[in-house]
């Protein structure tokens, strides 16, 4: 997905960009509203991440202008303010969602997904895998005769594996992607979700293979 990050704190922005790129997204960073306006005018984004306190103005102004121009690009506001009044006001101004800094990236991902689903899938892309198609936005596996809806963690696990078929992922790295940091989980928890996915995939030619001592990979027969 292509993100526009509008955030004036360079360190924080750098970290967010690195983190999003790590997940395979493309991110443009604007440190002020002027740059942001230039980016928006020339590039189509799937999602805009907007900070509120910016050096050349208030992010809320950008938000209401953005909505007045009837742009369909969803906006998630990143705010350090924790006051709910602020949040309610933001939603009234046309923000699709908001997150309080510091951002939890798995939460950000979940919120992006929810927002895009609500918006009717601006970036709906079906990923063909063997004899099935994977709709990452709605989280469904589309078999020729039926659709299977994945639960959140199954979906995230499948997404990680399907985005790089053939690549081996260690249990540890999968735990990082699936669980938030305040959960005490052992690496064995991954086996549960791999088991569930394997059951879903039984009647297709897509397989999740165990590489002993290394991890898992996705492949088609």
């Amino acid at each position: 997905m292509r993100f526009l990050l509008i955030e004036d704190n360079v360190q924080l922005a750098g970290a967010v960009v690195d983190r999003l790129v790590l997940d395979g997204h493309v991110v443009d960073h604007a440190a002020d509203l002027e740059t942001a306006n230039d980016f928006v005018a020339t590039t189509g984004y799937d999602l805009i991440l907007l900070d509120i306190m910016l050096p050349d103005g208030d992010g809320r102004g950008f938000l209401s202008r953005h909505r007045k121009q009837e742009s369909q690009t969803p906006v998630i506001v990143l705010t350090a303010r924790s006051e709910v009044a602020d949040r309610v006001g933001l939603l009234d101004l046309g923000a699709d969602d908001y997150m309080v800094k510091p951002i939890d990236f798995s939460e950000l991902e979940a919120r992006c997904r929810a927002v895009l689903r609500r918006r009717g899938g601006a970036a709906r892309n079906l990923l063909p895998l063997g004899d099935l198609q994977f709709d990452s936005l709605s989280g469904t596996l589309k078999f020729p005769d039926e659709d299977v809806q994945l639960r959140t963690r199954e979906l995230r696990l499948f997404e990680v594996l399907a985005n790089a078929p053939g690549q081996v992922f260690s249990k540890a790295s999968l735990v990082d992607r699936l669980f938030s940091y305040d959960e005490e989980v052992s690496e064995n928890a991954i086996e549960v979700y791999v088991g569930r996915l394997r059951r879903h995939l039984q009647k297709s030619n897509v397989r999740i293979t165990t590489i002993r001592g290394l991890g898992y990979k996705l492949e088609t027969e």
Partner: protein
Amino acid sequence: MSTPVAHGSIRRRLLLSLLVSAAVLAVVVYFMVQSVARQVAQESQDNVLAASALSILDSARFSGGQINVDLPYSALSMLDSISDERVFYAIQLGDEFLSGYQNLPSPESTPGGGPAFLSAEFLGEEVRIASVQRRVSTDIGQSFLQVSVAQTLSGQKQALARISRTSMGIGAGFFAISVLLATIVARSTIRPLDRLTASVSRRGPKDLRPVAAPVPTEMVPLVTSLNSLMRRLQHSLMRSEDFIAEAAHRVRTPLAVVRTKAEIVQRKSDDPETRAALKEMIHAIDDSSRTAGQLLDHAMVTFRLDHLLREEVSLLRMVHDTVERLRPVSDLKDIDIDATGTEDIIIDGDPILLQNALHNLLDNAVKYAPSGAQITVSLTQREGAASISITDTGLGFPEAELDHLTERFSRGANAQNIVGSGLGLTIVKEVVEAHGGKMQIGNNTGGGACVSLLFTLS
């Protein structure tokens, strides 16, 4: 907030002073009318008496040292014409009594020779006496012929009593009209003050706009000071709200940077020791960030509780909004949140605080419940109270600590590995109690925690 001690009322004081002046004026009017009437009555009686006496004096004839006095008919009839009074007269030459009533007192003669008057008692009645005199020559030399005419005063007294009654009526009427006018004046004088009071007290607790309505000159200094007070108050309120927001920003942004960097390094690292260390780091950062957030939340809540808003809040909508807001987070842990209750309940309160409280509770439930748990939020009305109950299928609260969990920085013994500050429940409790409600904490019989917020319905 304490109500200032009331010391007297401007309206009452104004009314009282207007009425006292009106009463004094009414009494003055009464006495003036009476004295004028008495004077007029006396003057007219004096004129008639003097005329009568003069006509008697004029009729005196001297012939051969004799004095003949014919009492002219007109002299007494003009007295009769006034009223049914008794009339007396006396004629004297020098000290010698000639005719009439011998003991009739006579006034001191005036030096100019004009008529002299006297009020006196005669034969048991009050009389008014007029007396005139003329110098005459007699056998024994120069002497004064003096004619006195007297008339009783009962008729005049009656007339005066009538006038007195009338003037008393006039005074009373004057007073009655004054009371009416004073009431109107007092009310219209107080009206701008009432208007100002109404316009200030009608405002919501957050409305600190200056008073713009025109006020009388005398009230301009008061309104100016009031406006300047409100400006200062607003400034200081804004400063504390901005301070809270700014503090949140300053504290959390660097934490966000560190956290993100740590997460990236952890993702890229294969060394189990490094990974474990980074995980602990991230855990600690989340902990302080959350604590900072809740401290600021707590400050915001305390601040807002001092200026508690009272608006209509739809609980059904609030529950729905809050649940939807948290759904992406709960989805991450495969936790299902279910909101039950279809009937809306409206309560009066601060929507922001109430939502904050509910959000805190639900956030807690999502945080502490294990993956795959079910959370149910139900809105019901029972025994005259609105109840929002949040139950989960998680660990539940440790029974032994149920009483202490709402104390600041108190955390359940089974929650040590989960990020939290121990302020969440304190915030919820304070918000609910400020709205006249109460919070009940317990465990379900089948396991899992249950927290209910009860708001009494008026």
